[in-house]
Every structure is written in C-alpha cells, then in structure tokens.
C-alpha cells in the first residue's frame, strides 16, 4: 500500500488567513484514523487537500512520492475515495445508480462493465443496502443516504477512504454498523480517514487520532495519547473524562 504523507501542509482561501498551518503527518494501511477537532478547525479542508480537490498554498500531500493535486484524476480516484459531507438531497437516482457512480474511475465508457456491477453487488452487501437497491435516493432518510454514499465509496474499490462525518445522521444501530464496517475495511487492507465529532466512538474504534485545532495538528497518536483529557479540555473548552468498565473497555465522556 502506497503511504500517504502530509508535509508542512498549508492552505488558505484567496485573501484569507490560512485555514491549515504546517500539518505534518503520515498514514499507511491498514488503519482507521479519526480526524477530530472543533468546528472550523480545518478537518474538511484537510480531507479536500488529501483528496486532491484543493491545491495547498505551501507544503504538499503525497501518495507514494507523487503530490496528489498533480496526479491524473482517474488514477488518484482509483487510490482515494472521498465522501464529502454534503450532496444534494434531491438527486433523482436510485440507490443502485448512486452506488455505481463509484465505478467511474475504473472506466469512463458510456456504460458500466460486468465488473462494475459485481463491485456494486459487493458494496451493497457490505453496507447492508441490498434491500434498498431500487429505492429513489431522494426518498431516503439522511442516515440512509450516508450509507448509500459510503457504499459508493466502497464500490470505488480505492485502498484509501476519506469520509467526512459519515455518521452525522445515523441512529445508534447504523452508527455502530458503520464503525464495524470501518474495522472490516481495515481488515481487508484499507486506510480509512474519518472526520467525526463522536470522540467516544473514535476513541473506541480508531487506531490513531489526528486532533486539529485552529488549523494546526494539536495531537497525532493513539486514542489514549491524542485524546488526553487535559488537551481535549484545552481544545474543546469542556472537561473530558476517561472511564474503564469492569471488562476493561475504556470510554470517553465529556461535560461538567
């Protein structure tokens, strides 16, 4: 698996102060990495830069030795599948059609191939969406739409997945299933970078945490290291506590 490296990565919108300052980090599969931080910390912008959808104003993000924003798009999208935070709510396609959009980097012919359909079947199965296949995307709930987009990213068969708040609209059952799926993807050799506000779930399921604050990487390490309560309190301005249950599992809670 080609390693991903962020080297002194900086980004600013034209005429604006930098959103991200000198981010240095590296990641390699298999792993699930949680990207956490307060609103406006630069998490989504960081994903955009890794996805090659924005060019850094300084530094670079490389895949292997190639800067991602200079890689041919199709080639990059065969390596990285990016699921943005928002897509239009009224997309007039069925679940199957949305999932199949993930196959575009594998051949931009007018029609999908047999391999594309096979990949779609697998993706529907893995995301427990087979029963939804014929439904209109627009008629789904927010959480179901998130699962369909995740299925499309899985269908893209890229070794790196960038997911921007994928569990934002999910109920506990589907949220737990989604985090389990991230674990399964890791087992099959994927690198999953997931932006989330659910620190407790990130602590439970991620191998590593990138904690962003004011556009800087405030911590990069295991959940216990990165989500150290004193640091979290400094970043989020509320007290955090680690707990351990009798079975030895650790939990993170916050608030007074």
């Amino acid at each position, binding site marked *: 698996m080609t390693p991903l490296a962020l080297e002194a990565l900086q980004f600013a919108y034209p005429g604006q102060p930098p959103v991200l300052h000198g981010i240095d980090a590296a990641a390699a599969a298999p792993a699930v990495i949680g990207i956490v931080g307060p609103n406006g910390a630069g998490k989504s912008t960081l994903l955009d830069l890794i*996805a090659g*959808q924005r060019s850094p104003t300084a530094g670079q993000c490389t895949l292997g030795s190639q800067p991602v924003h200079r890689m041919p*798009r*199709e080639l*990059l*999208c*065969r390596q990285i*599948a*990016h*699921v*943005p935070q*928002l*897509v*239009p709510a009224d*997309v*007039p*396609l069925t679940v*199957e*059609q*949305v999932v*199949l*959009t*993930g196959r*575009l*980097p594998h051949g*931009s*012919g*007018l*029609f*999908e191939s047999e391999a594309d*359909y096979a990949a*779609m*079947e697998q993706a529907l199965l893995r995301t427990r969406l087979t029963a939804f*296949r014929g439904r209109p995307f627009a008629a789904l709930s927010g959480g179901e739409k998130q699962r369909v*987009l995740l299925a499309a990213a899985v269908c*893209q068969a890229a070794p790196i997945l960038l997911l921007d708040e994928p569990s934002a609209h999910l109920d506990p059952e589907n949220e737990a299933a989604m985090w389990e799926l991230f674990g399964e993807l890791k087992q099959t050799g994927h690198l999953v970078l997931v932006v989330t506000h659910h620190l407790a779930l990130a602590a439970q399921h991620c191998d590593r945490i990138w904690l962003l604050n004011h556009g800087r990487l405030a911590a990069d390490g295991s959940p216990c290291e990165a989500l150290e309560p004193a640091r979290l309190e400094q970043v989020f301005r509320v007290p955090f506590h680690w707990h351990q249950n009798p079975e030895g599992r650790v939990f993170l809670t916050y608030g007074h």
Partner: protein
Amino acid sequence: MATDPRRPITARLAVAAAAALAVTVLTPFLGGSGMDYGKLWRGESPDWEIFLNLRVPRTLLAFLAGAALSLAGALYQAVLREALATPSSLGVTSAAALGAVAAIALGSGEETGFPLVWIAALAGAGLVIALVAALGRIQRFSSFTLLLTGIALSGISTALILLLHSLAGITRSFQIAHWLMGGIDAVSYPVLAALAAAVALGAVWSFRQARLLNVLMLGEAWAAGRGIDHRRLNWHSFAVGAWLVGTVTAITGPIGFVGLIVPHLLRRLCGPDYRLLLPLSLLAGGAFLVLCDTLSRTVLAPVEIPVGVTTALLGGPFFVWLLWSR
C-alpha cells in the same frame, strides 16, 4: 441483480427515432396550400418543386433546429442541476440574437448572409455564456442566481436589439423585425448540411459526456471525488450549448422554450439518465419543432404564424406550470 440499462435505453431510443422519422417524413406532405399528390408522385411541376425545394428543407431545418435547442437545454439543465436553466433563461438566445441583429443592421448587402450572421450569433452566445460561467466560478453563484443573471443579460441584449432596430434603415428594420419573430423558412441544402454537421458535432460530444453528467447530479464535490474535472466539464458544456444555440439562432432567429419543454417532459417520462435523456432530447426536440412548424403554417393558412410565436404560446404556460409544480 441490477439490470443493465443498455437494453431499455436502446429500445426507447429506437422507438423515439422511429417516431421522429415518421414525423419528419410525413409532415412535408401537410401544408396550408393544397398539393396534388398525383403530380408529386410523378415528379411534375410545380408540386414536385414545392415539395423538394420548400417543404422538405423547411422540415429538415425545423428538425435540426429543434434538436439542437432541446439538446442545449438538456445540457444546461445537467451542468446547473436546475430544471429552469435553458438557452433563453441563461440569456444565450438573446445574446445570439443580438449578435445576429448587429450583423444584419451593420452588415452591407450580401454580407448579411449565413456565415457573417452565424459568426456574430456565435460570438454573442459565446460571450454571454462565458460571462455566466465565469460568474458561477469566481463569485460561486448558485444556479438560481446564475439564472437571474442570465435573465438580466437577456434584458440588456433585448434593449440593444431594440436600439439597433431603431437605428437601422427601413429595409434592414423590416428584415430585423421578421428575423426576430423566429421563423422556419426554406433554406438551401448546403446551409442544411452545414447545420447538420454543426449539430452532429455538438451531439456527439454531448452523448460522450452522458455518464459524467449522471455523476454530476450528486454535486461537484462528489463528481470530483469520482475523477471528474467538473470545472472543465461545465465550461465545455456551456460552450457546446452556445455553439448549438448560436448556430440555430443565426438561421432561424430566436426560438424560445424548446430547450425547456422537451427535456423536462422527457425527464418526467423516462427518468434522469442522461445516456437516454440527451439523445432522446435531440430526437424529440426535432420532432417537436417540426410539429410546431406544421401547426404554424396550417392552423391559420394561408397566413403563417412564426414558429417562435407558437413555441412561446405553448412554452409560456408550461413555464408557469413548471414553477407552480416545483
């Protein structure tokens, strides 16, 4: 198992092609003035000449113009993801008309033929769509704001057309007034061949983008994550739309609403898949304008209604209904 869309798309296109062919073949036999079909069958004058040199080229022009306008409408709706985006609402039709009117008003004598008017109409359409696209890119205008911008630009073009019209001499002024009504007149076969080639170029390019336009329905961020250079796709689609509209407008004058009515009805009937919708818009748009032209030249015969008037009378209420049903 998922169904391969190839078969239903091919079947529907075959039906649409057969229907469009039937309309195009049959309508030249209909007209305000009676035709002696026996003479026509025997190739005798004057019916044979009327048929061959007036009715057939007119039908072919209506088909090609309708096809191009409808395809341009479908393209604009795809890239802006807005059902109300049409060559008219984006100001492209008016700008093409302004270019053409400028060529007619300022040109001298025989220079006001097809090539000069065509270049001027293309320049007008291209300038306006470039402005709309640039505003969308630089100012990050929403589709709806771009439509409002297009309507404003259309108003400016119309004002300039009126200015040119008032400054032109009597002959040119009449020429401009007639041209502005949007009409399908018999044109020479070489002009038709040039138009067919221009429409074919735009159509082939558009059809090749159909799968990308399907992905674009999920937004630009999603499309970028699937490897689409959405900025380039948008610019090219705007340019191809302007090419189609400018070319048609140069020959027929401004004809509105075809790019609104046809793609929208087809989307409701056959779904949003652009692999079907784009070629279907081409075929149905062509057939639609042939039927409108037939209506225009028969309903008040021997008086002919300009086809732009007929499409506006049909399209205006359709537009209101569309707004109502949103």
